[in-house]
């Protein structure tokens, strides 16, 4: 039954990350992403210096080996990366659409104004 704990933890984290990424944007989420990145780097350094840390974490949460914990963490990290990238691309598309629309409307006005004024 040891495996249940890690399953619960991972499911909660995955759902929380997904919900967070699909809702929030702006300063707070950007700050959280940066904190996450710093933590990621710190943990990477620690695990390089003390490879056994992961084995201890693994026994703590009920997973067999340290490598499994790292794999699970990677899955979560990748999911959050995919989520943020999706949102950033979508926001960028929105801006780019408004820009293209402005160009299209301005150009149409330039092209159509002379004929309209000569008709009236």
């Amino acid at each position: 039954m040891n495996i249940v704990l890690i399953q619960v933890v991972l499911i909660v984290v995955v759902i929380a990350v997904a919900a967070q990424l699909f809702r929030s944007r702006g300063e707070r989420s950007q700050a959280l992403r940066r904190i996450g990145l710093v933590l990621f780097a710190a943990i990477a350094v620690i695990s390089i210096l003390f490879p056994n840390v992961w084995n201890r974490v693994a026994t703590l949460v009920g997973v067999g080996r340290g490598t499994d914990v790292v794999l699970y963490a990677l899955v979560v990290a990748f999911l959050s990366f995919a989520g943020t990238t999706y949102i950033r691309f979508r926001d960028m598309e929105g801006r780019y659409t408004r820009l293209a629309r402005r160009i299209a409307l301005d150009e149409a006005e330039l092209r159509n104004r002379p004929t309209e004024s000569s008709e009236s």
Partner: protein
Amino acid sequence: MSYDDVWVVVPLYNEGPVIGGVVQEVRATFAHVVCIDDGSSDDSAAAAEAAGAVVVRHPVNLGQGAALQTGFEYALSVPSMRWVVTFDADGQHQVSDVLAMLELAGSDDLDVVFGSRFLDDRTEAGFLKGLVLKAAVGYTNLTTGTRLTDAHNGLRVMSRDVVSRVDITQNRMAHASELVQQIGHLGIRYGESPVHILYTDYSRSKGQSLWNAVNILADLILR
């Protein structure tokens, strides 16, 4: 009867072979047609212009939803505009249906009239397409609180007030549901009118694949 206050908005993407005929047919009744050329690689824009439409050119391809919103904004720049009609470029819509929709809007004092393929049995959609369209309208009704029989029909009549208050952000195909949702939120009077969609060999060959239903659903959920 003059329809000088009606603007027909036609999103246009690579419909060169038919757009000239479509614009001519619409202009026999409605003087004002604006085609939004969504970065076509063929001669669509020139053909539409030759047939007498105003053409607004997207510098790059953005999608049908984006083209509609551009058309709305163009129409709003014309002070005399009272009604916008959204009309497909591939020739599957009928001008006679638009006249019936405008009449219904006038007689029942409606701000929006949606065209529906399922109010009578003139339109022959395939079984699977019919099923997907029914599922789509079921989902739209469920999530938007509206009561419609056909949510993904390109033929609509909208008043100036409504056009100025909607803002399509779904660039691709999910815009139809988005529009229904926004109109539902406005709390204005809307109705439906039966329309006949002509599934010609041409429109069938250009029609969207049913796989697109999956993409639309994903766009709507990840909104």
